[in-house]
């Protein structure tokens, strides 16, 4: 039967890349002779090597074998972790990664580089190592005969390793016709007999042209637990063997009993335990056990949960209706129904939480690549940079995690390239020579917050402003606050680097970072103080699949407003509604003027000719530091909604982030607040209401 192993290659590659990341992280972190860390690194290399051979990446297996041997020597204390060795191992990690990536993408590898590193490993291992890997070739020449006479005297304990002589004979029988003669001589008196021990010995006659090696191989697993003689069948022995064999050898010591060519295969006491076993004993318990689940399966599960959530909300509506119209007679039934519903709700919530949990991964998955990157980048730019990570265990949806990787890399690069100064400049400014980049993550509300801070020079306010004026992003006479100026770095086509370096300037600007983060429903802001450093703060939703929403009704249509973006909801008081320049209504809320937005008009759901605000409610929402008041007819209630993408089911609509199905089966659109602001801007509204302009409104 042949089995196609290629179907496991994907998994192998994934876990190998993970293993390489672990190796890299531990190597960068390696201090002194940390046995646990070396163990972890060794195990990762070991798994890659084992899998590589099995899944057809012989070159990778071969290369990794050298690395593994080096690590094994470190593990057993024969070699210590010098900086040169760590560097060599890091380079090896790169090589293995490159080979695997090339294998995955069908690309070419940099053979010269791999050969160089491979040679360095060989050189490091020294001579004479190659022989130790191959302890198998000790059985001597292939000896062919017309058959074999085998004397097999197992130790009494042989059964305790699960080796059953019967199975050995079955295996022998596959090599040729077999005659078995049992020798009962060793049987002790009945009273002394241990029923779990093996007291029997056998004489076997195997005919056919099996090689001595094939015969020996059958006994490979028991060779240290038995007396074994394999000798060629003599032609003249022929038919007489059956009678001769039992007498020709006498039990125990067998080896010397017969003349001719017998070769005692092995007779080793079973207690030889190499010294390395002791060092391998204490296993680090650092790895979090994890499962690998196909994302499609999880998505299907989430879909199911989505349906369950819908069923539940439908049922509760039925329940409420029943409650309203129920007579006294069906009261017990009603109670039951309500009770069941309460339970269903609880179950739903629990199921939902646990299923969502499967998708959640600690952000360390995204952070892990940074130690190496910061290390390399600092060296390249001649800067001393220390990376501090905190909150690595903060969990985040896998999809969000995958998409946040690149923006994070860009921001960290940016901090090192533009933020952290060279050691001389830092010392001159009275700061420690080594700069610090701090990556921090924590949960806040329904969001995850990721901060990238550096203690570098901070943003150069004047330079940013000059550049922005130069590029026509702001008018020369425009008065801007510090925050607004800092925010300009996210404007499309803005780059303050005097020359494009190969570190930061890869044609991807901060505008792309912001765009990508916005696409995830998140936001990015920067705070900076000259001479003290900058902090970039990214806010992201924990998941993209389910959302806490506020259901609102506008002109008979129902919409979902993400709860996270709602500041407050208020009853309209006509005296606070002002009109600006005859074309825009704003609402005075305490000391702020907030633009009023008519959803129906903006989304083209048929604008009502005259807008009576008196009976309406305003939902004040916030995104990107700006507020907007949405006019709604009614607030219907809060609920979790399952987001269905409009792109896959219909097409992308600006201002909407998706749709959901409500308890009664109708579809409600989910509003995308920042999208609404963009739309509003395009439609001629002015979302950024500054204090200086508010007076004309008042």
């Amino acid at each position, binding site marked *: *039967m*042949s*089995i196609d*192993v290629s*179907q*496991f*290659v994907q*998994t*192998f590659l*994934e*876990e190998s890349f993970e293993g390489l990341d672990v190796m890299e992280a531990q190597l960068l972190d390696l201090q002194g002779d940390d046995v646990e860390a070396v163990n*972890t690194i*060794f*195990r990762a290399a*070991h*798994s890659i*090597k*084992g*899998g*590589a*051979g*099995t*899944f057809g990446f012989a070159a990778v*297996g071969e290369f990794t074998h050298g690395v*593994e041997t080096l690590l094994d020597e470190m593990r057993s204390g024969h070699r210590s972790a010098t900086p040169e060795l760590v560097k060599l191992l890091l380079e090896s990690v790169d090589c293995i990664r490159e080979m695997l990536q090339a294998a995955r993408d069908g690309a070419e590898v940099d053979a010269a580089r791999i050969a160089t590193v491979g040679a360095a490993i060989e050189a490091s291992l020294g001579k004479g190592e190659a022989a*130790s*890997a*191959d*302890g*198998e070739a000790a059985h001597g020449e292939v000896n062919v005969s017309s058959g074999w006479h085998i004397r097999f005297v197992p130790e009494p304990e042989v*059964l*305790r*390793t*699960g*080796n*059953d002589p*019967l*199975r050995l004979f*079955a*295996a022998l029988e596959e090599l040729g016709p077999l005659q078995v003669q049992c020798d009962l001589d060793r049987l002790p008196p009945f009273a002394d007999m241990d029923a*779990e021990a093996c007291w029997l010995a056998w004489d076997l006659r195997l005919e056919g042209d099996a090689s001595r090696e094939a015969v020996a191989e059958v006994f*490979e*697993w028991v060779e*240290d*637990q038995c007396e074994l003689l394999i000798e060629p069948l003599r032609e003249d022995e022929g038919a007489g063997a059956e009678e001769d064999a039992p007498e020709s050898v006498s039990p125990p010591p067998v080896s010397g009993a017969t003349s001719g060519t017998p070769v005692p295969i092995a007779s*080793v006491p*079973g*207690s*030889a*335990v*190499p010294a390395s*076993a002791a060092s*391998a004993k204490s*296993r*680090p*318990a650092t*790895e979090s*056990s994890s499962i*690998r689940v196909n994302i499609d399966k999880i998505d299907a599960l989430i879909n199911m949960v989505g349906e369950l959530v819908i069923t539940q909300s439908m049922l509760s509506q039925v329940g409420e209706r029943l409650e309203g119209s129920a007579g006294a007679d069906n009261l017990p039934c009603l109670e039951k129904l309500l009770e069941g519903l309460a339970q269903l709700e609880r179950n739903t919530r629990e199921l939902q939480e646990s299923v969502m949990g499967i998708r959640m991964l600690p952000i360390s998955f995204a952070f892990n690549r940074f130690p190496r990157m910061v290390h390399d980048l600092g060296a390249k730019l001649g800067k001393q940079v220390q990376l501090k990570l905190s909150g690595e265990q903060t969990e985040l949806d896998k999809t969000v995690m995958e998409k946040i990787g690149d923006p994070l890399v860009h921001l960290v690069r940016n901090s090192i390239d533009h933020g952290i100064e060279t050691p001389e400049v830092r010392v001159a400014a009275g700061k420690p020579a080594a700069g610090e980049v701090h990556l921090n993550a924590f949960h806040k509300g329904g969001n995850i917050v990721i901060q990238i801070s550096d203690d570098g020079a901070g943003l150069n306010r004047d330079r940013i402003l000059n550049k922005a004026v130069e590029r026509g992003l702001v008018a020369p006479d425009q008065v801007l606050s510090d925050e607004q100026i800092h925010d300009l770095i996210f404007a499309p086509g803005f780059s303050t680097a005097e020359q494009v370096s190969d570190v930061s300037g890869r044609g991807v600007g901060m505008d792309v970072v912001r765009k990508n983060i916005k696409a995830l429903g998140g936001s990015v802001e920067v705070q900076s103080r000259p001479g003290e450093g900058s902090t970039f703060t990214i806010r992201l939703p924990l998941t993209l699949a389910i959302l806490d929403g506020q259901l609102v009704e506008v002109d008979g249509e129902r919409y979902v407003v993400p709860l996270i973006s709602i500041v407050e909801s208020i009853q309209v008081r006509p005296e606070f509604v002002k009109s600006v320049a005859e074309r825009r209504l704003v609402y005075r809320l305490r000391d702020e003027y907030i633009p009023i937005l008519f959803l129906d008009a903006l989304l083209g759901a048929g604008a009502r000719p005259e807008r009576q605000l008196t009976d309406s409610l305003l939902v004040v929402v916030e995104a990107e530091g700006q507020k907007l008041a949405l006019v709604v007819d009614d607030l219907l209630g809060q609920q979790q909604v399952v987001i269905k993408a409009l792109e896959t089911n219909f097409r992308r609509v600006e201002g909407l982030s998706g749709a959901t199905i409500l308890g009664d089966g109708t579809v409600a659109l989910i509003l995308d607040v920042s999208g609404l602001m963009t739309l509003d801007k395009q439609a001629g509204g002015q979302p950024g209401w500054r204090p200086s302009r508010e007076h004309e409104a008042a």
Partner: protein
Amino acid sequence: MAKILAVDDSTSLRQMVAFTLKQAGHEVVEASDGRDALQKAKGGRVDLVLSDVNMPGMDGISLVKELRTLPSYKFTPILMLTTESSPEKKQEGKAAGATGWIVKPFSPDQLLATVKRVLG
């Protein structure tokens, strides 16, 4: 057909082993390290244990030792999946009570042939 416990911390290798054995009609229980395996072995009898040596948590050698102390696993065949072809490494497994070994890398066919040998 036999019920086989496959123990390896490498998912890909474990999947390959499990898939191959299932194709051959065996029932396969998977475990990701020694501790997990011991738990599963105690939970229900298996006819054969295939275990990796190097694993976090509890390694293969310790697993064999633990299993051999259990009455129902006294004689159960236990095969080590090892990349070490050196005699000492194999000895270590044998001393702990392993039945035999399969040296990685191995092909699905080699695996089935070896398994067949211990299942009789």
